[in-house]
């Protein structure tokens, strides 16, 4: 469990817009260990997707985006790699799955073609070897009659099947790290549970690290070992799931947990119970970013930004109230 795969420190990503450079995420730091699932939660627009896509450097237009900080993957800093080296990392060491499998699979290529592609690129597999491995992957993600599926196109599969196919594609080269960006949001509840079970199963089976981005705190409670809570482009609290769920320190985390729907209710409900609205990126408060919505905010909070500091038992929080 202590085997660190990914260590992100002080990651900031800025986009060039009409109003100049906007920092979508600011000083994000976290680590992922082998065999661990790290949950990344926060309201819509807080920068979860930007964080994950910055790790893979998927915003490729150089003049439109700027990265700062370091992203260490097993000892290499991905942000300082030349672009061609980065292409070897993608799909081989880190993979990603997305929310909507229908739009994430190429409509004019067969399932087989899309699974075999990373095998051809990274493992130089050809012909029958690639085919056999693709069939293995389809079996691994629980797809019945894989020989038929291989020849089919994405639109011929059901939503749950497509999600499994996307997972098979992402895991084809057995990456050390899987980033799952809301992998179940587009599915109905029973399929959601199946896909989450599959991700947990594969995480154990392949001993890979997983970053699970989700809106669903119930899913985090069930599947993740650790969780990082993001607010407005920063991580405000991070720690083990039992610790944070038992003893949330940041007022924002408390708000999120208070807004959790009961387990017997509709689990897909989004989190939006905390008062106030999220400020826009270009009118960021200068002190603590949560201060305008925080019931405990003081003048100090409004003037000076707190840092993410570890408190006890591996839990860290970005709040002045925990400084004493």
């Amino acid at each position: 469990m202590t085997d660190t795969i990914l260590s992100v420190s002080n990651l900031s990503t800025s986009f060039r817009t009409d109003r100049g450079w906007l920092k979508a995420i600011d000083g994000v730091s976290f680590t992922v260990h082998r065999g661990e699932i790290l949950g990344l939660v926060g309201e819509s627009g807080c920068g979860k997707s930007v964080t994950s896509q910055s790790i893979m450097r998927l915003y490729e237009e150089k003049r439109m985006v700027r990265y700062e900080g370091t992203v260490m993957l097993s000892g290499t800093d991905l942000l300082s790699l030349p672009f061609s080296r980065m292409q070897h990392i993608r799909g081989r060491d880190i993979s990603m799955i997305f929310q909507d499998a229908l739009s994430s699979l190429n409509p004019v290529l067969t399932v087989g073609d899309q699974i075999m592609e990373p095998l051809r690129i990274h493992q130089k597999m050809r012909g029958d070897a690639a085919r056999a491995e693709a069939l293995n992957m389809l079996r691994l993600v629980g797809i019945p009659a894989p020989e038929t599926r291989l020849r089919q196109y994405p639109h011929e599969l059901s939503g749950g099947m497509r999600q499994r196919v996307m997972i098979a594609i992402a895991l084809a080269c057995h990456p050390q790290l899987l980033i799952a960006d809301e992998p179940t949001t587009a599915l109905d509840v029973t399929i959601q549970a199946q896909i989450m079970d599959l991700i947990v199963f594969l995480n154990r089976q392949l001993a890979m690290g997983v970053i699970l981005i989700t809106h669903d705190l119930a899913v985090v409670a069930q599947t993740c070992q650790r969780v990082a809570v993001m607010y407005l482009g920063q991580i405000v609290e991070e720690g083990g799931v039992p610790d944070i769920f038992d003893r949330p320190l940041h007022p924002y985390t408390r708000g999120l947990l208070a807004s959790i729907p009961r387990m017997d209710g509709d689990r897909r409900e989004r989190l939006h119970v905390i008062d106030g609205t999220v400020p826009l990126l270009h009118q960021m408060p200068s002190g603590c970013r949560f201060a305008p919505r925080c019931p405990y905010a003081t003048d100090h909070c409004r003037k000076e930004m707190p840092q993410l500091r570890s408190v006890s038992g591996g839990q860290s929080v970005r709040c002045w109230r925990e400084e004493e």
Partner: protein
Amino acid sequence: MKKYILKRILTLLPTVFIVSVVVFLLVHLTPGDPAAMMLGDDATMEDIAALHAKLGLDDPLIVQYIRWVSRCLQGDFGTSTAVIGQKVSDMVFSHFRPTLCLAIYSQLITILLAIPTGILAARKRGRIADMITSVLSLLGISLPSFMMGLGLVLLVAVHFRALPAAGYKDLFTDGLLPFLRYMTLPALSLGFIHAAYMMRMTKTSMLEVLSSDYIKMARSKGVKEHTIIGKHAFRNAFLTVLTVIGQGFISALAGAAVVEKLFTIPGIGTLMVDSIEKRDYQVIQAITLLIAMLNVVINLIIDLLYGLCDPRIRLE
């Protein structure tokens, strides 16, 4: 796929029927008696009546239509009323080859010019390559083809004396090189407008495809940039471009008259203009029918190619 092809062909039948009726009526409703026209000014009433009976012009319209259709199906389009003794099918056929060769050549140039530049413009959005293609495509859209042709003739043929200003050499009887020498300027002026349009369509559909999730997914698999463009993106963008190629072919076939006249190419366009001048209704009718049917056939081919390229359509 077989079912798809059959369905496509069946849906064409009503179109073909309506087109044939319209073309048939087109000539029958035009004022003037074709028999009188054929016999000239000094024909007697008896002569005209006799020809009427011979041609079946007094039969009910339905009978005439059915007779006309069955003759057309056998490749018999009657004889010319202007050039005595000439079979219309021979005239149309001999003029059709230059037009077809010109259309294919101009579309080849168009495709080879427009698609790569369109892709390039999508890749280098906002940079110089993009700006140049934007200006060129604006020029192409606002310039009529005869202006383009005249400009090309003045520059390439008159000023640089690089290529002949007019004339026709056949691909099959004269060989490839003479054909290219004589046909490049006409093909360019015929294709340029469409090239500009195709370039813009390629660029916009490439941009749309490149921002889609499956491109992001492909990048996250480690696919190299040129494979992303060629395999993942272009195959999808091509679906839009295919329709544009079909339109281009049709307009190159149907709209070649101006360019053919300008470069004195003995094609369908030239024949059409001459026949209109001579009121050679049989020929006009045959050409109209031919162009209309080509339209139908090209659309069918595009549909079939569409089914071939897009698995989502094939299976419905």
